[in-house]
């Protein structure tokens, strides 16, 4: 059975941005998720360019998608356009970090 986009997002929400201590989906780092047959492609960003955690997060994304959804191929692209902003955070994330909601 095909894995849905929301199942992918559920899996991705287990990846924590270590800087903020919050999952990358709520932080708004996932720009695109495209599951197709036995492979999935993810576009993700980071809160700031030059963030030293790029590799860690990229590896975590691949790991959880393999483990949780069973895709044989996971492609995780780091993208910088559009640049991440606070507006991309979920309401809960903004609230938890003390930003206005």
């Amino acid at each position: 059975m095909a894995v849905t986009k929301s199942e992918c997002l559920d899996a991705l929400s287990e990846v924590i941005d270590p800087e903020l201590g919050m999952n990358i989906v709520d932080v708004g780092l996932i720009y695109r998720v495209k599951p197709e047959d036995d492979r999935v492609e993810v576009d993700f960003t980071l809160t700031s360019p030059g963030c030293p955690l790029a590799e860690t997060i990229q590896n975590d994304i691949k790991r959880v998608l393999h483990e949780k959804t069973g895709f044989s191929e996971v492609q995780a692209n780091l993208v910088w356009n559009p640049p991440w902003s606070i507006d991309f955070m979920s309401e809960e994330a903004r609230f938890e970090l003390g930003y206005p909601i």
Partner: protein
Amino acid sequence: MQITIKDLRATVEDTPILNGVNLEMNTGEIHALMGPNGSGKSTLSNVILGHPSYEVTGGEIWVDGENILDMEVHERARLGLFMAFQYPVEIAGVTVGRFLKRACEIRFGEEQIKTKEFIRQLREMMEFMEMDQQFVNRYLNEGFSGGEKKRMEILQLLMLKPAFAILDETDSGLDIDALKVVARGVNKMRGSEFGALVITHYQRILDHIEPDFVHIMYQGRVVTSGGQELVDALEANGYDWVRKQYGIEEETHEQSTASR
């Protein structure tokens, strides 16, 4: 929750304010406490919650069989006691949202409060209290109008769901629309799991929150208790009537005259 107050006496800066208060209140009941200025209504509520400026010089306060007089304020609050302040304090730097979330975490347990559900509930209650959603982000009571502060107190009540709440003149300074909203908040809580002591000078809030019991305080004592008919009698005849009816001597007046 059962609250039993026995012969409670208290002073402020060595001035006796409470001179033997007896009162029994339970969840499921709404009590109204009326009385003229200086009769001890606010002192009673402050003493029940454990305000440090008041010294208890005699008597007892029992909550579910436990004497709470030795407890700290936060311990009393954790029993499920709540007070809506007459003059709510402003807390700069602490937003309404963060304040209420932390308070709810302490009351219900951290694992019980999920941020998403908490925000949903908070927004729902704010809508119910006809408060602008942007209040979530504002510092607690800072720059709020008098009416907004009182709504804020009731919002806290709705979120914290105490077993027993004391509303210390929550109606004072409110216009009729705000008064109705405040009353609606209290009435929403009404039920077998909630009780309240509504302290007021005026009849009008009691038209919207119909009390089960009415008590009249005079010179630091509860001089009589009854039902709605007491409110009507007060409204018609004033506090002078209470004094005459219950044979109270004007001691404060004589004292103040003598001291001049």
